């Protein structure tokens, strides 16, 4: 008879749990069955009427019933909560295709980008980055560089003078090399690059600018060769214009280097076949270089019998024009439309 009571509740619960139950009903069921006077709870009071030999079994069955109820209860409760969250999520749906919020992102000027990439390569090769004044002495800009007053090669660099013929706006970054060598006092090896602004009396047009940026490098050490310069240039060319570039040197002339060379890369546009970027030659000149002229070493306190080295120089605007396909140098200095600047707010690998 007691067992029948259990069976009765058992089948009653089975029926109930097969039906649909909401949160409220679930809590009601909990009270109805498991509460103080709940249908399952009260079964415990029946135990005194159960014969001794059945007591144990009866107890187990009541417990089983409790467990069944609790398991079911937890299961349904969890499911209902899940439903509730899902409903909430559903109601929170947005249109993810609407535009995102604008967050400003800064960018380096194309000239700075080129400089930074050159710096990071050359710093890894041991070059320090140094700077010098733009208002410079004629002595450092020209004279100590084997360009005495009246030297015809000064023609190529028509210069802005400030006071007499003593002070000027530097026409090249080479005076930084002079200053560095004077500082080294003929004792210390030198490995520097010096990016910076330079000035010449050029009319501004698509390919000329009265202000422009140079980056020169100077290495003074022992037993340095033109081959070392070529190897260094190859690294630079490949970093800037890709691994596939080949390089060549052509004889040239600078008063401060001997021998002097022009540094060319194979045209990245036509790969050497000839196009309008390389003017049909298959080669593009990107800079000038050479072995430091012993006259300059001596002028700056280095004994050319002990020391030698090389110097190289690039026009950064020219590199930027080639690399980014800019056709007018004035783009870099005039009327900076922020839309232009934004074209440079991403990384390249």
């Amino acid at each position, binding site marked *: 008879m007691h067992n029948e009571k259990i069976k009765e509740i058992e089948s009653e619960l089975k029926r109930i749990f097969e039906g649909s139950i909401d949160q409220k009903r679930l809590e009601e069921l909990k009270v109805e069955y498991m509460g103080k006077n709940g249908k399952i709870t009260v079964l415990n009071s029946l135990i005194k009427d159960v014969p001794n030999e059945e007591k144990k079994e009866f107890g187990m069955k009541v417990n089983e019933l409790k467990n069944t109820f609790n398991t079911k209860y937890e299961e349904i409760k969890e499911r209902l909560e899940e439903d509730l969250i899902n409903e909430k999520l559903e109601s929170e749906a947005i249109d993810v295709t609407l535009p995102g919020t604008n967050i400003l992102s800064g960018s380096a000027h194309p000239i700075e980008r080129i400089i930074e990439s050159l710096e990071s390569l050359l710093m890894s090769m041991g070059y320090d980055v140094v700077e010098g004044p733009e*208002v410079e002495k004629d002595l450092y800009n020209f004279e100590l560089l084997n360009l005495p007053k009246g030297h*015809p090669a000064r023609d190529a660099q028509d210069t802005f003078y400030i006071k007499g013929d003593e002070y000027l706006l530097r026409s090249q970054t080479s005076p930084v090399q002079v200053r560095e060598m004077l500082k080294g006092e003929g004792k210390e090896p030198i490995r520097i690059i010096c990016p910076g602004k330079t000035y010449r009396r050029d009319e501004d047009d698509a390919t000329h600018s009265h202000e422009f940026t140079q980056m020169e490098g100077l290495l003074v050490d022992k037993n340095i060769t033109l081959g070392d310069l070529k190897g260094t240039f190859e690294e630079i060319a490949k970093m800037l214009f890709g691994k596939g570039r080949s390089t060549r040197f052509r004889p040239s002339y600078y008063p401060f280097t001997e021998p002097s060379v022009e540094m060319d890369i194979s045209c990245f546009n036509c790969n050497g076949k000839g196009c309008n970027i390389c003017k049909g030659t298959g080669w593009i000149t990107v800079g000038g270089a050479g072995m430091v002229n012993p006259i300059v070493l001596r002028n700056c306190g280095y004994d050319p019998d002990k020391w030698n080295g090389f110097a190289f120089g690039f026009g950064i605007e020219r590199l930027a024009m080639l690399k980014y396909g800019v056709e007018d140098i004035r783009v870099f200095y005039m009327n900076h439309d922020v839309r232009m600047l934004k074209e440079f707010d991403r990384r390249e690998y």
Partner: protein
Amino acid sequence: MAISLNWVNDYVDIKNEDKKTLAQKITDAGINVEKVISNNIANLVIGQIEKVEMHPDSDHLHVCLVNVGDKTLQIVCGASNVRVGLKVIVALEGAVLPGDFTIKKSKIRGVESNGMICALFELGLEEKNDETYAKGITELPDDAPVGEDPLEYLGYNDTLYELDLNPNRTDCNNHLPFAYEVAAALNKKVTMPDVSFKELDEDVNNYVSLDVKTDNVSMYNLMVAKDVVIKESPNFIKRRLEAAGVRSINNVVDISNYVMLEYGQPLHFFDKDVVGDKIVVRMAHDKEIIKTLDGVDRELTTEDIVISDGDTPLCVAGVMGGLNSGITEATKNILIESAIFNPYNIRYTSIRLGLRSEASLRLEKPLSYEFTLLAIKRACHLLEKYADAKIVKGIVTYDKVDKTPKVVDVSLESINSILGMNIKSEEVDNILEALGFTYTKKGDVYTVTIPNRRQDIYNQKEDIIEEIGRIYGYDNIEPTLPLIKTKKGEYRDNVKLRKIVSKKIRSLGFSEIRTYTLISEEETTKYDYHFGKTIKLLRPMLKEKSCVRQSILPSLVNVLLYNKEKKNNDVFIYEISNVYHEEEEYVENSHLAFGISGEYLNNTWNSLSYKVDFYLMKGIVENLLNYLGYNNRYTLSLSDSLPKEIHPKINSEITIDGKNVGYFGKLHPKVSKEDVYVCEIDLSEILEHKTGDVKYQELNKYPKVEKDVAFVVNKDIPSIDILKAIKKSGGKLLTDIKIFDVYTGDRIDENKKSIAYKLTFEDNTRTLTEEEVMEIFNKIILDVLEKFKATVRDK
């Protein structure tokens, strides 16, 4: 200016060389041939007109029968000067004339025409103008051989090289020095021009005396040529001068130019009968006047060299002749000058007078005395040959040239170690011989004598090594990297700070701009923040770019306003640049300037935005200064001494450790009606204030206590003063003060404001008790109430 290969062929045999390949070889050796121009035209022949009839269907066309050697062709021609017997230039079928005009068989108004009778301008050999057009077809002399190439007959058949020379090798603009380069490239020998002539048995010293009164002349030679006949130059001279871009005048003038283009030595011819028998070379007197041959009175300075007759200047040396002393149609006797002047004086004079000529450009460079002497003899040879001149014996010379040859020792080992090549001894021998350098060899050391014609070569081994390298070919260099100590490069001095600041400010959303350092004088007065003396250029190119800027802001604000005009709304830009002013020395400072306008953050469709304001600017400045390590060392406070372009009430001066380093603020409404905020900071000054290393501090593990209070104070009390007072009263345990509300409005007095503070108290050694916190909190309140006549605002 171009090099005629016909001319070069006089000195080195290049008849059978491919001219394009040769150009490449020479270019590879550093003599840059920019353009190869050939004026050969295929399918041109000399013809003779045998019959002329009027065209049946035209009143100006003629139908001609022309004998072209192997056949007779019918050709229709419109020129009025066609006539029987005339020898003419015929373009046969297949000839391609300038402008890609191909000659074909055709019918002209029904009559067959098998070619074209040409004028020189139609072949691109003469300028097309009214004069040449009126002459009609070109009439060849009677001796022109029918069936042959007319261009070769006329001496037009030539290949020209246009050169782009390095400034040390402009000697190669002259045919003989250029020939030496060709010879070196081809490993051939140079044949020198003929300088022989007969001499009259008279002494030149009886014709002219010479007195050189200045050290600025190192060599001066005079010779006399008598009884010249002025006439047209022979064809070959005319053609060659034309090729070089020099106009033919007459045989005598042409010879002086011809010799210049051969040797690179400019000559000057005086009319001997005008100048008299005395030549004095001296520096001009100050303000001395000479009327030059263009009829202009030129005022001279003591830096100009003049050739005078002892009294009157006859010629500005190397630059321009005097009006009456030159060669005319009537000249009979010539005084020939071949000289070397101080290049600096020639350069100075020609630039100052604006008279730079082929002659002055050559005299501005060091010249070879050997060529100076050869050139005057060569002129005599040509004058005798082509102007029937009789040359007076002897040469009047002033000569201070140091003739010691330059001799350089260079070892094979040093050649290879500097070039990074592996050239063998025999190869060096060959190159030196091809260059025409004499040498002796002892072991692996060469003793090289540099020929006098190579004035560009300096007395050191590197110059010889360059010669060997460029001829051997730089393509043979094996790329290597220097075998030196490895180290990591670093940013030095100012550069490092600049890079740090640049990267930080970019990460805050700013785009970098670069603007010109040179600005107008008017612009230099803007954003004047303790400006020094402005640096001005001596000879500016433009008024707009005549001064060196002391502030970046004038240019940066221009860029901001430009973008506003372009409707680019959100503009956040910066520039880092050096600025300059003059004290006893020139002072250089590195500045950072930035400007903001528009919205910092926005989303157009849900009206989310953060429009720029003073506090955003302030936040950016604080962020930057904190990042640089100046937390608690800077103050930002309203200033009344900022530039007039800045809003007087919405600004702040920045000081670090009590020193001004810059300012920021809103643009004055007179500058812009828009909300634009700008900042300029002196990075060089910042660098003076050292910062320490980052040190980790253990976080406080004891709880903190927060208390809120709002004070009502007079509007004009700056919040910073209250903050300072709170800080002072709060002592060590007060660790943070935040303003969480500022209120003005209806609920308090009109001239009052309410500022609400959240105060944080903590101690990193223990838990604070409520009582001790309240004690400090109440003290703070009492102090503020008393100090600022404030009240506590009820919640």
